[in-house]
């Protein structure tokens, strides 16, 4: 997936000399090829993320297309105000790439883990938020980012959890859900994003459920979310992000307003990680491992089967 990112960025930079990569002193090895191919379009802006984001706004104002790369914990989270005032207020074409989103920096602790980046940015007007699940979605997201006229936040997990699509996917359409598995309509459906799409596919296979990937978190298509809701007895959202303010929140907001259904939000609970350990260890700690997800979805399935899915009884 990271190779797909690097390759797409090189292609964009070669095709358009106004593309400029700014990095906050991150991306060791990731940009070796980029620097070899387009050395003049690379700026290491130093460990100075606030200035880097504002500077990207200045560059965009005079015709450049900056891609700003940092860890998600720093861009966007550290620089939300710069993104708000300097970039989104004027709809400037800046692409912010937040790497290592979620729990993947498990051994490094809370400074580098980021389960709040989508929540922090989703309320910024006009910001497109992308969250690819595999290399094919990454290529499509980069193509989308390269042609979008406004600001983009591309959320990137560092861990590559394998392909979820059999091959290249077509151009992304704003907010569209991608169906990755067809399952039974009398059961809940799964809507997942980023690293959790792989988990969703596994669980959907076990329980014979439909599953969708959401590579575009904002804007999210109301029609697609409602269609998923009406094609199932309830929706389960899966994300390596807080249950507050991310995909689960967006789906719950939309269904509550347009297509009431029961929604189970599976994500990082509203707390920091407690212990040090591997990425897999932290996924288990937060209940995001395949076994825990499978049993939670099974319990939800039983719940939504018992009665009218629109108004199921409380457990």
């Amino acid at each position, binding site marked *: 997936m990271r190779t797909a990112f690097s390759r797409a960025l090189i292609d964009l930079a070669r095709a358009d000399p106004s593309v400029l990569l700014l990095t906050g002193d991150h991306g060791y090895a990731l940009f070796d090829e980029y620097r070899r191919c387009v050395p003049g379009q690379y700026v290491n802006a130093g460990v100075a993320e606030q200035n880097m984001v*504002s500077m990207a706004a200045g*560059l965009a104002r005079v*015709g450049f297309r900056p891609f700003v790369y940092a860890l998600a914990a720093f861009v966007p989270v550290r620089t939300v105000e710069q993104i708000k005032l*300097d970039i989104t207020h004027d709809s400037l074409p800046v692409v912010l790439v937040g790497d290592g989103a979620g729990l993947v920096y498990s051994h490094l602790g809370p400074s580098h883990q980021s389960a709040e980046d989508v929540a922090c940015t989703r309320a910024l007007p006009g910001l497109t938020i992308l969250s690819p699940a595999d290399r094919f979605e990454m290529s499509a997201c980069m193509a989308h980012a390269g042609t979008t006229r406004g600001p983009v936040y591309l959320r990137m997990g560092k861990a590559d959890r394998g392909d979820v699509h059999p091959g290249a996917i077509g151009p992304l359409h704003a907010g569209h859900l991608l169906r990755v598995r067809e399952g039974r309509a009398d059961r809940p459906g799964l809507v997942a994003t980023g690293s959790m799409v792989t988990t969703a596919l596994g669980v959907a296979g076990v329980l014979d459920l439909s599953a969708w990937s959401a590579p575009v978190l904002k804007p999210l298509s109301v029609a697609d979310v409602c269609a998923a809701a009406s094609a199932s007895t309830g929706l389960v959202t899966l994300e390596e992000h807080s249950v507050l303010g991310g995909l689960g929140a967006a789906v719950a907001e939309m269904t509550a307003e347009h297509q009431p259904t029961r929604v189970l939000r599976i994500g990082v609970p509203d707390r920091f990680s407690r212990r040090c350990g591997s990425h897999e260890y932290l996924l288990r700690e937060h209940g995001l491992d395949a076994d825990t997800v499978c049993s939670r979805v099974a319990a939800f399935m039983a719940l939504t089967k018992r009665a009218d899915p629109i108004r199921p009884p409380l457990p």
Partner: protein
Amino acid sequence: MITRATSQDRARPDRRFEPARMRRTVLEMAWAGSAVHVASAFSIVELLTTLYRSHLRYPDNDSRSPERDFLVLSKGHGVMAQYACLLEMGWLDESHIRAYFSEGSLLFGLSDSRVPGLEVSSGSLGHGFPVGVGIAMGVQRKGTDQRVYAILGDGELDEGAIWEGVMVAAHHRMDKLMLIVDQNGFQAMGRTEEVLALGDLEGRFASFGFETLAVDGHDETAIDRAIGQLWATGAGKPKALVARTIKGKGVPFMESDNRWHYQRLTAETYAAALAALGFDAAGIAAGDATR
């Protein structure tokens, strides 16, 4: 290809940019809108008038010309003084001044990039200058001779993002960028030296690799000369002009009285301030029939 603007684009001898008239416009706005930050605007009047009259290039008088110089008001609190200059440039008209702060009006109490002639949205401090650094990097990459000016408050220098930008500007040898500090000695809650001491500002900027000069920020001739001198010296270095100013300059009872960061005009103080600037209650100068 961006063409070189001529000196005619830069100099506007036909436009007077008289400081007293600029301050009168500020007072009219503050009175019309019951607005604050009068003293913050008064301290940058001569910096702005000198820049607009003699330095900033706007080909075809177009505020959005791709060939223009850039003036970034990083201390957005002084924006009323810039509105007065934008009026003189013809990019605003009297109705904007009279309608200040009325429902549905265009002009905010802090700099907003949607207004013709304002490059950035500021007021949250520490934003404008780093955006200016980005503009300067873009200009440098394009190889044009466009210049970028950023006016910062001294209180604004508390913000860490400013010093990030200062380091980046020096490292990348942005010699088309000039940082101008409005050193009026005050920030919102008191004297800068009491809140967070800045010490020797010229020394600080020089140590960061800037070509630096200090100037009386209310002496237009001196400002003009200092700007010219900074551009002419220190090849490869960004410029810093430390302008010693007086917060509330021009109206004696406002000068260095930090209450005028917040205070609103009354009928009495409005008339007294106009009188101090040499205007009668209708805003007309002695012997001046024009508005």
